């Protein structure tokens, strides 16, 4: 099927010298040493400041410096920016920036027909062509016919711009990416100030490097002005977003920030125990740089020590956090069981990546869900929650901390590589508007005059009190062995064990009374089809459902933040729909948990390619389900979707 957003983008109108576009997708691609992530990040910040809605998708190799010029070494950054709501980085791009032949080869199939190519001719010499596996030079053999080409020798022009600078050639070449950024700023009529400020801050200690980068950025902009007199320039107007103050945010930043916020609003000092792992490390970096909030970060010797140190901190009365990704989750499993037994608050952040084993460290996947929900020895229930977008990670991880502290339980917070590295505009909250978090500490008054202090005495929510060392009269011993109800003493009594298993389970299930009900995010309140998603498929589901409804298909979308326990109304909400389609970037995990809970049918939709779901495929899947509903009624997605394309809103 044709790409929805491409069709929408075609609705252009001239505005002075500019063509107005509603939505544009640019992909920056180059060697991993070419600075494409930084270039994309800068374009993103500027787009956000201009007021566009946007979504990004950084896509880079696991190797820091994969062999130069090869397909394996290509690093990419895709941004979708628009004057209307944006939900995904886009299935395909309108503009492809390729710094060398390999970058072109790896990404050309993602460029829309008639799209624009910005190519660095210096990256198409004999060696680059050979490494990329080109038999002939695509710049000369006519194979790029049908695209609009902007071919420039970026390396040469960068060096020329800097000929009066006393920098080595190597240093000069490092600012090549700024030339390309400047050119795109010209093409999309963007201000350069934000990037100039960024460079000034980045090279504060090295004014010469700042000057060089700034000069090359300007040179790229002016190059457009002087040489591309016949080229089209575009305008993407600000999006109509709810009024308020915005900033741009990535998922890992939002996670780190949400944790700081939870620490401030709970009054609990934050302790992070973490071991470096892609794509979670940025959260460790973020918190390590926030010591002024009283935050302690501990880079442990391994994943197990990371979580165990957080458990130790939680025992002592801190907000204990550990951050990791799939392989680290596997290693932390036993300690999570200990935290369940101890009934201490703990937040385990799993920034999922493609597995199993080491898998694809820099690629995204939602494949740790079963591990999070079921993956521990014994009957070991804990809370599982998932963020659905970069900015949502703030709210979700904050909520994870609230539940952990107020319900004295470990909570697994799931994000993934796509959320972690993706960016979007965020209408951020005020600290005072965040719901306060109330820890319930035991005090000396909690010691029973006859029986002493009972560490496992529970309130009506089945929650025990947090008794931290240092309070006279509350001395007690806790541990991983089964404990007697209330006293916490070791107990091998069969009936007690069964009771404790049920109590721990009921405590988690009861949390459903303290979380919001699930609501329909978009689409009809009842009908033939509900898309029920979780995690980072939110954007794709939203865009697909928007376009399906525009095309006349009554499809609804709901997205789960709470997976254990499920929202109270999940079953009744689903019962209002004939079919429930469950899209996931895995081999069918939420769908298994749903089947485990509810006696109805579910239709799975799965892709396991290490990339976000494509809207077009999801729409097709939805229409296939609907066709099954009313085989005679629908004419098929292809024609309908094209119709949808003509109805931008």
């Amino acid at each position, binding site marked *: 099927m044709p790409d929805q957003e491409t069709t929408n983008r075609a609705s252009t109108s001239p505005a002075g010298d500019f063509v107005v576009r509603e939505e544009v997708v640019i992909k920056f691609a180059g060697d991993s040493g070419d600075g494409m992530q930084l270039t994309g990040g800068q374009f993103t910040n500027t787009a*956000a*400041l201009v*007021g566009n809605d946007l979504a990004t998708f950084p896509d880079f190799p696991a190797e820091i410096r994969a062999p130069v010029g090869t397909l394996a070494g290509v690093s990419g950054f895709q941004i979708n920016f628009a004057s209307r709501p944006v939900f995904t980085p886009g299935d395909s791009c309108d503009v492809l920036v390729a710094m060398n032949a390999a970058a072109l080869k790896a990404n050309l199939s993602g460029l829309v027909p008639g799209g624009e190519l910005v190519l660095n001719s210096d990256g198409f010499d004999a060696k680059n062509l050979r490494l990329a596996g080109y038999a002939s030079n695509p710049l000369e053999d006519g194979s790029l016919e049908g695209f609009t080409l902007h071919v420039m020798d970026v390396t040469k022009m960068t060096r020329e711009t800097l000929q009066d600078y006393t920098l080595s050639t190597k240093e000069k070449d490092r600012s090549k990416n700024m030339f390309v950024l400047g050119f795109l700023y010209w093409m999309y009529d963007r201000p350069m100030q934000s990037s100039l400020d960024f460079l000034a801050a980045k090279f504060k200690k090295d004014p010469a490097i700042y000057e060089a980068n700034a000069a090359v950025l300007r040179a790229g902009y002016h190059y457009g002005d002087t040489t591309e007199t016949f080229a089209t320039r575009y305008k993407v107007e600000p999006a*109509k977003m*709810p*009024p308020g*103050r*915005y900033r*741009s945010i990535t998922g890992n930043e939002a996670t780190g*920030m949400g944790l*700081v*916020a939870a620490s*401030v609003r709970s009054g609990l*000092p934050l*302790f992070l*125990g973490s071991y470096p792992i892609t794509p979670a490390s940025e959260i460790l970096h973020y918190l390590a740089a*926030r*010591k*002024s*909030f*009283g*935050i*302690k970060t501990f880079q*442990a*010797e391994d994943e*197990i*020590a990371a979580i*165990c*140190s957080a*458990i*130790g*901190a*939680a*025992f*002592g*009365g*801190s907000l*204990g956090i550990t951050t990791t990704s799939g392989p680290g989750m596997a290693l932390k499993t036993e*300690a999570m069981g*200990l935290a369940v037994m*101890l009934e201490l608050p703990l937040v385990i952040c799993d920034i999922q990546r493609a597995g199993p084993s080491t898998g694809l460290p820099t690629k995204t996947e939602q494949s740790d869900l079963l591990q999070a929900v079921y993956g521990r020895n014994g009957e070991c229930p804990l809370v599982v929650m998932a963020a659905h977008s970069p900015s949502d990670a703030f709210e979700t991880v904050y909520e994870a901390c609230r539940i952990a502290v107020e319900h004295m339980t470990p909570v697994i917070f799931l994000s993934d590589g796509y959320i972690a590295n993706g960016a979007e505009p965020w209408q*951020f*909250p005020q*600290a005072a508007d965040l719901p306060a978090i109330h820890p319930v500490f035991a005090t000396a008054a909690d*010691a029973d005059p006859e029986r*002493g202090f009972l560490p496992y005495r529970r309130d009506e929510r089945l929650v025990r009190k947090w008794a*931290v*060392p*240092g309070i*006279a*009269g*509350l*001395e*007690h*011993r*806790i*541990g*991983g062995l089964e404990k007697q109800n209330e006293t916490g*003493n*070791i107990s091998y009594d069969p009936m007690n064990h069964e009771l404790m298993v049920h109590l721990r389970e009921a405590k988690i299930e009861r949390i459903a009374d303290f979380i919001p009900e699930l609501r329909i995010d978009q689409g009809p309140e009842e009908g033939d089809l509900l898309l029920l998603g979780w995690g980072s498929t939110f954007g794709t589901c939203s865009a697909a459902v928007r376009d399906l409804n525009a095309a006349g298909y009554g499809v609804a979308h709901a997205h789960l933040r709470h997976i254990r326990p499920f929202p109270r109304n999940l079953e009744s909400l689903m019962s209002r729909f004939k079919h429930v389609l469950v899209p996931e970037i895995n081999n069918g995990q939420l769908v298994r948990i749903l089947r485990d809970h509810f006696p109805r049918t579910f239709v799975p939709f799965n892709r396991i390619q290490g990339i976000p779901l494509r809207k077009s495929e999801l729409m097709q899947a939805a229409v296939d389900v609907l066709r099954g509903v009313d085989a005679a009624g629908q004419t098929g997605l292809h024609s309908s979707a094209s119709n949808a394309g003509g109805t931008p809103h």
Partner: protein
Amino acid sequence: MADSETLTAKSLVTDQDIRWCPGCGDYSILKQVQTVLPGLGIPREKIVMISGIGCSSRFPYYMNTYGMHSIHGRAPAIVTGLKATRPDLSIWLITGDGDGLSIGGNHFIHLLRRNVDCNMLLFNNQIYGLTKGQYSPTSELGKVAKSTPLGSIDHPFNPGALALGADASFVARSMDRDPKHLQQMLIRAAGHVGTSFLEIYQNCNIFNDGAFEALTEKSSKGANTLFLEHGQPLVYGMNSELGIRLDGFTPRSFVLDLEGSLEDCWVHDERDMVKAMILSRMFDDPGVPGSLPRPFGVLYAMERPVYEVMMEAQLAQAQAKRGIADSMEALDALIAGSETWTTA
């Protein structure tokens, strides 16, 4: 249990039945800890016992203080998180040769290098007791145990040398059968600021009875052991008739008054890391002719910066630099970041 109570050995006993085998060396260690603690002047509520898994790790249940019986090998990591956030607590880490040196070997060395202020008591019985008699990482070569019917082919760890190799700031050795010495060592360990590593030879009378007999029994103890004291010459023997001198880096035993005098003896300096390494290498099989005695006491003690103190200092520095005193205000500034825009 009011704040002002005077701690006594008796008041440190819990109401829990002790589940160690009758005759186990653990009883003596428990008793010496309960005897020594009241003299340290630490309020009960500030004392925390953290253990892993194994016979020794049941220890916290028998101490009427705060305690956590955690998971196998991980006590050092739990201690690190607790001490980093609660420097006010007196933390005692209870572990064994399997828990501390096998499954928890990684955490063991990292705790020592970081120098988190705590007292680590490693009950070394050279066997797995709780799992009923497999050889441990300190079992001697050739050890016949349940999992090694033909004898162990694993070269054993030398815990003291391992600890020094990890740059431990305090390394000492004692034994369950010498209550007085054990008490002294517990007091020294408690007094040291930093990670105090105290290895305690402990008899497992069920699965490895008599493992340390040559070092602990009256008839052979004098000949096979060397009790170290800072500033004192290295003298040992049934009648203190033997001395140790250094021949270059090689320790040699000699007969006092016959082959040399007290002046020839190596004088113990517990702050000398190189000499401590040599002492830790005095690890001969006792009883083998020509073997050197096994040193007991403080092999090495030298304070150096402590992890949680450095951590606190960094926080104080960052907080002084922040300039915004109110945390809500600071949080608002953090959330907004440096680049925002407003839509109407």
